[in-house]
């Protein structure tokens, strides 16, 4: 037993987090920044943060992740990090020639109170930011929120580049939230199919799923360009996918440039995708083409074909709020029963939403926001499930309790595919079902006695 010390009995813990279902803000800020074309993320703090975030993102995406660090030592921690950041900006623009540097803070620079706008102003005045280049920034103290908050804050930082000319450009902004490069690509495909011209930001497709060609470019082809970011102020509207990842940036765009916004769930599963497509249709005043309805129908078809394997199966779920909410809705919609749901984010709103979504589940449902994977494991010990959906770290629980695992969310550092195969939209829904079904039927095959080992499912 790998997690042999986890007792069945759940005792309340007030101070000790064990096996967290979240991590800290800066890694989210770094991921978001990579979704801007020509952008070099920069971590303002000591070296370890940057090294850890780059390592984690690299392990998850199996792609190069470059980022600078202010390399604080004790001196900078006492006297402030201005000198380090100004020097870092100078070095980065000279050596790596990015279009944009996206600075985010760490708990160190936040605690000493470094003022990013002031420092970047100074760097600009001192000529350390070349003409036509940009510095965007986000405050991402690690002791507030989670990696999701960090993502959201850096996307808000991008909105600072938005400009409005007073003339609408007919485009719709889509903020996809922390999803995979493949998901971002799928959102673009689906929007194009519906016939809506979108500006999506951030967009890590092309950046974190690059080809192997014998050439290395720190700044690959993909990503939302500065020009596109500037134009977001002239859009006819913004669709923010996910309250926790995307809504703040959309609202800021509304306040600053009067771009109306609508906050939707991340389009995982049938219903959330329906609402996304419908919103696109309404905002852009187009008819949804038959092709999209056909894709939808295929998903409904698979749900009906395979329903016997989903009906009333118990699931334990851990992940980020936007993802967990959409997944819970999807699971409930196919008559599966999420019975233990954990997210690392402290939020009554998340909890209330999850309670609402699972109100009709015919089993007792445990929900924690915030909770950790130690608690999730304890719940599973007391009420076993048929399936676990969570990130790589859930594999320890899955092995100890002998329960099939579907890897979903961040980080996935022991499998590939998430970079390339979307789980958003109707196509993504098909893929999610395929994976869930595969795991469940593999288990059936493994456990079946010889006399009832079936060829046909």
């Amino acid at each position, binding site marked *: 037993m790998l997690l042999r010390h986890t007792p069945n009995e759940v005792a309340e813990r*007030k*101070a*000790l987090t064990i096996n967290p279902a979240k991590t800290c803000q800066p890694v989210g800020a770094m991921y978001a920044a990579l979704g801007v074309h020509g952008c070099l993320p920069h971590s303002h703090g000591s070296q*370890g943060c940057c090294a850890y975030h780059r390592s984690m993102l690299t392990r998850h995406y199996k792609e190069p992740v470059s980022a600078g660090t202010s390399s604080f030592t004790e001196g900078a921690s006492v006297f402030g990090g201005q000198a380090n950041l100004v020097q870092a900006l100078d070095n980065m623009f000279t050596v790596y020639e990015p279009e944009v540097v996206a600075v985010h803070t760490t708990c160190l620079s936040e605690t000493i109170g470094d003022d990013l706008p002031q420092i970047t102003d100074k760097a600009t005045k001192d000529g350390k930011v070349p003409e036509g280049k940009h510095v965007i920034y986000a405050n991402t103290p690690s002791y507030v929120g989670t990696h999701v908050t960090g993502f959201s804050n850096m996307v808000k930082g991008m909105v600072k580049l938005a400009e409005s000319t007073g003339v609408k450009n007919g485009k719709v902004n889509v903020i996809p939230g922390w999803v995979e490069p493949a998901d971002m690509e799928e959102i673009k495909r689906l929007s194009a199919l519906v016939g809506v011209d979108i500006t999506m930001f951030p967009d890590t497709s092309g950046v974190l799923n690059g080809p192997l060609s*014998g050439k290395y470019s720190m700044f690959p082809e993909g990503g939302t360009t500065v020009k596109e970011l500037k134009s977001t102020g002239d859009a006819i509207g913004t669709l923010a996918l996910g309250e926790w990842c995307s809504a703040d940036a959309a609202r800021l765009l509304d306040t600053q440039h009067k771009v109306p916004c609508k906050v939707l769930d991340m389009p995982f599963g049938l219903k959330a995708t329906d609402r996304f497509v419908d919103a696109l249709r309404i905002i852009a005043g187009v008819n949804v083409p038959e092709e999209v309805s056909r894709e939808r129908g295929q998903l409904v078809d698979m749900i009906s074909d395979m329903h016997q394997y989903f009906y009333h199966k118990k699931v334990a779920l851990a992940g980020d709020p936007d993802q967990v909410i959409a997944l819970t809705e999807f699971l409930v919609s196919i008559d599966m029963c999420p019975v233990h749901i954990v997210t690392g984010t402290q939020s009554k709103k998340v909890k209330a939403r999850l309670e609402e979504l699972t109100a009709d589940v015919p089993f007792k449902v445990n929900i924690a926001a915030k909770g950790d994977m130690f608690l999730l494991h304890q719940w599973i010990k007391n009420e076993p499930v048929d399936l676990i959906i969570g990130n790589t770290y859930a594999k320890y629980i899955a092995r100890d309790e002998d329960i099939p695992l579907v890897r979903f969310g961040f980080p996935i550092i022991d499998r590939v595919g998430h970079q390339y195969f979307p789980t958003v939209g109707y196509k993504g829904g098909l893929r999610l079902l395929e994976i869930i079904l595969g795991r469940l039927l593999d288990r059936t095959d493994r456990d079946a006695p010889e006399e009832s080992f079936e060829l046909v499912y």
Partner: protein
Amino acid sequence: MATAKKKLVKWEPTDIKEEMLKKYPPKVARKRAKQIMINEALENETPEITANVRTIPGIITMRGCTYAGCKGVILGPTRDIVNITHGPIGCGFYSWLTRRNQTDASGEGDENYMPYCFSTDMEDKDIIFGGEKKLAAAIQEAYDLFHPKAIAIFATCPVGLIGDDIHAVAKQMKEKFGDCNVFGFSCEGYKGVSQSAGHHIANNQIFKHVVGENDEEKPGEYRINLLGEYNIGGDGFEIDRILKLCGITNIATFSGNSTYDQFASAHKADLNCVMCHRSINYVADMLETKFGIPWIKVNFIGAESTAKSLRKIGTYFGDKSFIEKIEAVIAAEMPEIEAVVADVRTRTEGKTAMMFVGGSRAHHYQDLFSEMGMKTLSAGYEFAHRDDYEGRHVIPNLKVDADSRNIEEITVEADDTRYAPRKTEAELAALEEGGLKFKEYEGLIPDMDKGSLIIDDCNQYEAEKLVEILKPDIFCAGIKEKYSIQKLGVPMKQLHSYDSGGPYAGFKGAINFYKEIDRLTNSKVWSYMKAPWQESPELSATYVWE
């Protein structure tokens, strides 16, 4: 690419160095020039290499921080200590199982906390009002849940800034429990200039709070400690297998596959064998001063090096039957290795490597490559000090700068009751006379070819330049570097956490490594960089259907 090939012949080390420095702002270039050394060449601006100095802000470094060196590297591989990170969630999260330290906790009643990540998950209110109360409560909760032998606390950046006294909390909780050792590490990420500071802090505290706690006699005729071996990918398992075959008792490995009790009993060994000089050489010194245990430098990376290290241990203890047993083990293991080398060498002979890895790995692994007939063109350490490059004789001349001064040095004296010299002065002198060197490490420089480039704290930009210019057949560094190098069409092997492979230490490990390097350098995939239409884009024929 005819031009590139022509260039390869023409590039002189000085040109390469110049090319690497060209793009830097002048101040940065001046600093980096002192950290890039052309081995044994007179063109070097300084006679020695500059090392263990601050990383330049904004230069994309391979380094991590002090916390990573302390909690991640040194205490990470210890299975029965509850390691609580006191800080926001990130630091604990990222150091949770990510170094592939393996441990064997299969014995009955064995404790294993390695798959757990414990954190006080500090929030803004803890930063504002102080986190000591939360820390004390977290320690209490951990104690109530697990009743471990020991609880260790690791300070992260904000903890040092707000002034939480983790040591006072630890002391208070230790006294309260009575049956659980609680101690803390002031390993805030901003201390020092690299992970190295964290190793130092970790080792000092383990030495202060744990080593020597258990005076029970340990069985075994030839008792050693293995210092600086972290059981990445199972290296320590293979070394232990070999030691056991030879009849050597390993009292404690610092700290791969280790337990609290092993640290506590380390003073019962008769010889200390140092693998990674960088991370732990001072512990060997302290063990000698306090308990009288001499130390030698060993290297279990490479079959020849493994054999050599075993023979050193044999010479130290000096018993004829023991030495014969060691020779028998070597003789039994070697044929399989020779067979694999003979096969692999047909495909690896003459190939080239580069490696930029942590402490001693950039040195040790060159032995494995040379066993395969491969040459190391360039190497360097991520967090070494000058003695790792130039040898221990430079230690007295090392300047103590502001960053090093922040790292606690502990002074050790001979233990009143337990100091017992394992060999007399005369015996030690005789052994030295016979060629066994105590307290000696000559460093990386003497082992590298003339004209090779030795680079301290190599960064992403320089690594790319080196690969573009010298086109090595393999590049070794860490996960952050892996994919940018591979995009250039050069296979990259991680030597921190070994990708998915290992063990690479000892005899069986050497075989694994030869096969792995054969796979990497001879994989067909590196020939697929260009599609047929990119290889010859000219349209020269007219097709019949036109």
